């Protein structure tokens, strides 16, 4: 029984805020998971079945909440659909429209299309449509309130409210701006000292008009500034006033890093590559200057229980030396070349001394990956810069060629408490697979989930850096596995050798459970190619099979008829024949076709005792051509007549090759020139030089852009398919001749299809409509 056909005691989870890097999953009672994979909703049971196929087109998002236990939302091309977990095969359209935006608002979802005045609130109960005064241009979603900006004003929807209500402003709507952050939003104006708290509806007052700007700091404090005074309004109430820095203006005010902690206000600006910090305290505002570097992150403690940490990226300039210890000089200036070595320093804000104190750092260890607070610790990672020499082969660890990434956890309450996750190579995380924004956590308090150098998943306790568990080696290529986590389950999407698998993992001990392949065995997007190839190949195969029964007529191809004539002319004149194979290598089918014709031409030259010069521009083509010409001489019974000069490698360079071939034409004056294969810009240079030397010239290529040049400058030209027909035409082998007939049938099919499809498109029937009309349901 399919896991989807049973009754579902559903356990459905959306991503909680702490696990953003983890992908959305929904889970049913039997352990099957629903998730988004390359634009498709997937469901996989622990037994590996993958039965759901929702016909919704490309899906861009899945949405749900822990309280949604019967359904989840799917955002697809045509709108937002609700999918019942008990009956996932059917999807109900909730909001139609393209380019919808979906925002989570607690247990509900706000859905709207841009430039419309309608917003839908979707909940487990159903959906309700709300209408604004004008098209929506901006929205701020807070815990209990949604604020939207429409054409004619601000509108507010409260959690308990039935509809949007217009927001009355203490200043003109045209001057109004929104500041958001710290879980609140403020509407303010540069022309007023009044501000509107969106959630409470309270009017806040600054000491002066907020002509410079208003910001909401991480702790929810509102900072309003004029040129002469800054007003800090903490969330708990009260007002504090500060003298702003002398260089304050609107752009600097919004560029500065500003935060408030334990009654101190810190403003951090950059002065000559150094962070400069103003501490506003009750005693005034002492200034602190940090070492040279760039602030990577400032992490504030949770609810002010601890100290803020500042991560500074530093760099060193070291002289570059080669393995022999010699200074490496810049070849243009003659000055020693410098190597930039990245490092870091970690500072904490010491409230008692009112200054930033360095607590750790390494001048040769660069910060990599995210820096994020998890519980009482701030998690960050470093990678030590290797001592290396430019231009030399490093003495590398062949198995793990890059320096190890070390994960650290710095306590935010105890400065001396810091752990580092240092393990033997293979068990350390790799830089290429580090997350960009947030450490993936299995649960809110950890463990952190990382992929090791040896392709296993590591679960690291963020409070002490201990390895909780490690999975067995996963089937992984260089990509990172996608981690799917839910309340009590964990699965990975891992890709290796073009096969993508979903692997269930026990979150308690890391043991691997069932795995199932996610991608189809067949590239369904290529079914049209395959159909075309099968039809053409069937026609070819039939006529090859039927070839022996009766003689088939082949129209005369002037270029091929003239091959023998050209060789004969060269024989009569006592001059050599020049055969130019083209620029492409043997992996190009035109080169292979050219080599087939070369075999025929070489045999003729051997029979007529006429020298042949074959020029090649690729090494592998040279080897193949040499064998072909040598064999042709043997077949003609004149192996002794073969000369090493018959096949010449000239150059891989396009115009070096052209110059070489031109030189041969001018010096050796061949009587017949063959240009057969894949040619580019050199085609006309070759053909015109040949024309100037008075040779009879036969060209052949399937490059449409070069054909006009050959037609203009050569006596005969094999156009496109004639090049590929040459071998059959020349050999008259019944099997090969049969293939020519198959080729013609293939062309006939294409011609009929072109006419039919042109008519269908003219009548407005496109490919999708046509396949639907004939009952085909293919991608």
């Amino acid at each position: 029984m399919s896991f989807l056909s049973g009754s579902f005691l559903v356990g459905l989870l959306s991503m909680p805020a702490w696990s953003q890097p983890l992908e959305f999953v929904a889970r049913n009672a039997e352990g099957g998971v629903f998730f988004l994979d390359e634009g498709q909703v997937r469901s996989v049971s622990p037994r590996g079945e993958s039965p759901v196929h929702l016909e919704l087109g490309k899906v861009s998002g899945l949405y749900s909440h822990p309280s949604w236990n019967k359904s989840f939302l799917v955002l697809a091309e045509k709108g937002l659909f609700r999918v019942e977990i008990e009956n996932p095969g059917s999807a109900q359209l909730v909001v139609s429209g393209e380019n919808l935006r979906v925002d989570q608002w607690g247990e509900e979802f706000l859905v709207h299309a841009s430039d419309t005045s309608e917003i839908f609130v979707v909940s487990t109960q159903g959906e309700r449509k709300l209408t604004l005064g004008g098209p929506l241009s901006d929205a701020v979603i807070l815990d209990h309130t949604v604020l939207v900006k429409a054409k004619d004003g601000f509108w507010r929807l409260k959690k308990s409210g039935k509809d949007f209500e217009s927001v009355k402003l203490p200043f003109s709507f045209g001057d109004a701006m929104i500041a958001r952050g710290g879980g609140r939003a403020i509407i303010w104006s540069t022309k007023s000292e009044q501000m509107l708290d969106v959630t409470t509806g309270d009017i806040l007052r600054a000491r002066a008009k907020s002509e410079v700007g208003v910001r909401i700091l991480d702790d929810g404090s509102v900072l309003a500034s004029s040129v002469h005074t800054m007003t800090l309004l903490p969330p708990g109430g009260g007002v504090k006033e500060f003298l702003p820095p002398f260089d304050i203006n609107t752009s600097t005010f919004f560029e500065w890093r500003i935060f408030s902690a334990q009654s101190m206000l810190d403003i951090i600006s950059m002065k000559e590559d150094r962070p400069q910090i103003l501490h506003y305290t009750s005693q005034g505002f002492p200034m602190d200057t940090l070492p040279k570097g760039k602030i990577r992150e400032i992490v504030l403690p949770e609810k002010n229980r601890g100290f803020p940490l500042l991560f500074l990226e530093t760099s060193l300039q070291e002289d570059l030396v080669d393995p022999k210890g010699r200074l490496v000089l810049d070849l243009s200036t003659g000055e020693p070349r410098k190597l930039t070595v990245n490092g870091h320093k970690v500072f904490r804000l010491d409230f008692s001394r009112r200054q930033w104190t360095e607590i750790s750092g390494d001048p040769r260890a660069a910060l990599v990956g995210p820096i994020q607070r998890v519980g009482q610790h701030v998690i960050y990672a470093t990678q030590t810069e290797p001592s290396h020499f430019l231009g030399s082969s490093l003495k590398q660890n062949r198995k793990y060629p890059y320096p190890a990434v070390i994960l650290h956890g710095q306590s935010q309450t105890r400065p001396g408490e810091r752990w580092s996750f240092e393990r033997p190579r293979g068990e350390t995380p790799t830089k290429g697979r580090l997350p960009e924004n947030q450490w993936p956590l299995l649960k809110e308090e950890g463990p952190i989930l990382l992929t090791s150098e040896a392709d296993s998943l590591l679960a690291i306790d963020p409070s002490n850096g201990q390895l909780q568990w490690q999975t067995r080696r996963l089937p992984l290529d260089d990509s990172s596995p996608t981690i799917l986590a839910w309340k009590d389950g964990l699965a990975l999407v891992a890709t290796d050798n073009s096969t993508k698998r979903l692997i269930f993992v026990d979150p308690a001990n890391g043991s691997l459970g069932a795995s199932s392949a996610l991608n189809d065995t067949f590239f369904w997007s290529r079914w049209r190619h395959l159909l075309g190839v099968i039809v053409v190949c069937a026609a070819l195969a039939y006529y090859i099979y039927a070839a022996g029964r009766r003689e088939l007529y082949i129209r005369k191809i002037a270029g091929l008829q003239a091959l023998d004539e050209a060789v004969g002319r060269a024989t009569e004149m006592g001059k050599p024949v020049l055969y130019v194979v083209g620029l492409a290598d043997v992996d190009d089918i035109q080169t292979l076709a050219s080599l087939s014709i070369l075999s025929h031409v070489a045999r003729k030259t051997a029979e007529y005792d006429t020298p042949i010069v074959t020029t090649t521009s690729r090494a592998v083509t040279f080897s193949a051509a040499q064998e072909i010409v040598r064999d042709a001489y043997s077949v003609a019974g004149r192996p002794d007549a073969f000369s090493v000069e018959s096949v010449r490698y000239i150059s891989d360079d396009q115009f070096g090759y052209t110059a070489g071939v031109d030189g041969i034409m001018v010096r050796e004056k061949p009587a017949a020139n063959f240009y057969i294969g894949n040619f580019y810009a050199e085609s006309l240079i070759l053909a015109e030089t040949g024309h100037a030397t008075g040779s009879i010239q036969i060209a052949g290529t399937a490059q449409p852009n070069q054909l006009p040049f050959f037609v203009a400058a050569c006596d005969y030209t094999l156009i496109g398919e004639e090049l590929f027909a040459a071998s059959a035409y020349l050999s008259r082998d019944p099997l090969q001749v049969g293939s020519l007939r198959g080729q013609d049938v293939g062309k006939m099919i294409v011609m009929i299809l072109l006419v039919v499809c042109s008519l269908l498109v003219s009548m407005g029937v496109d490919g999708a409509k046509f396949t639907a009309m004939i009952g085909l349901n293919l991608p």
Partner: protein
Amino acid sequence: MMKRQIPLAITFLTGLMMVVQYYIVPMNYLGERMTNWFGAITAFAYVLAAASLYVVNGKRIRDRVEGWPYNIVLLVSLTATLYIGFFNDILGLGYPGYRPIDEGTAFDWMFKYIQTPLSATMFALLAFYIASACYRAFKARSIEATLLLSSAFLVMLFRVPLGEYMWEAVGLGNVKIVWFIDTFIMGAFSNAGQRAIQVAAAIGLISVSLKIILGIERSYLGGE
């Protein structure tokens, strides 16, 4: 017997696998892997190609055939390039910490100041050859040739700003000649012709590929 059967068997298996890997997901990685193998094989073939250059040109110098000093130039250039590439430091041309192909090295200098301008010179010849080929091709000997000449004249004239300028100067600026050329001559006639060649060539390509995979077409192996 084996000399022919083994390559044919390899060709059949490899060709079949390359077709299958294009459609079958779990085998798809094999395509890229085999393309990498081709790169490795090419490296070996260059040894043979370089040896051929020495043999062919050495023989021509020894026999004092016409133009033999050019062969000396070629061999000296080839040897010097190889030597500077391989033994940069021994010649005293190398710099600490630099590979021969790095910017500013002697090897790079040769590429920039010898090879690049020589290539550009050869490429520049194309302009003159196009003129001479056009002269021959566009002779109005028949109705077809006259049509070709007229359409080529229109395309050439109005693909440069001068043509448009002259068109406007004679007061025909509101007649959309460039649009006519782009839409009809290039977009319809030229494009249709090119696509016809491409479609037919693609079918021919499938045919040759199938014949090679099945071992019907063997002349590229020689001796047929």
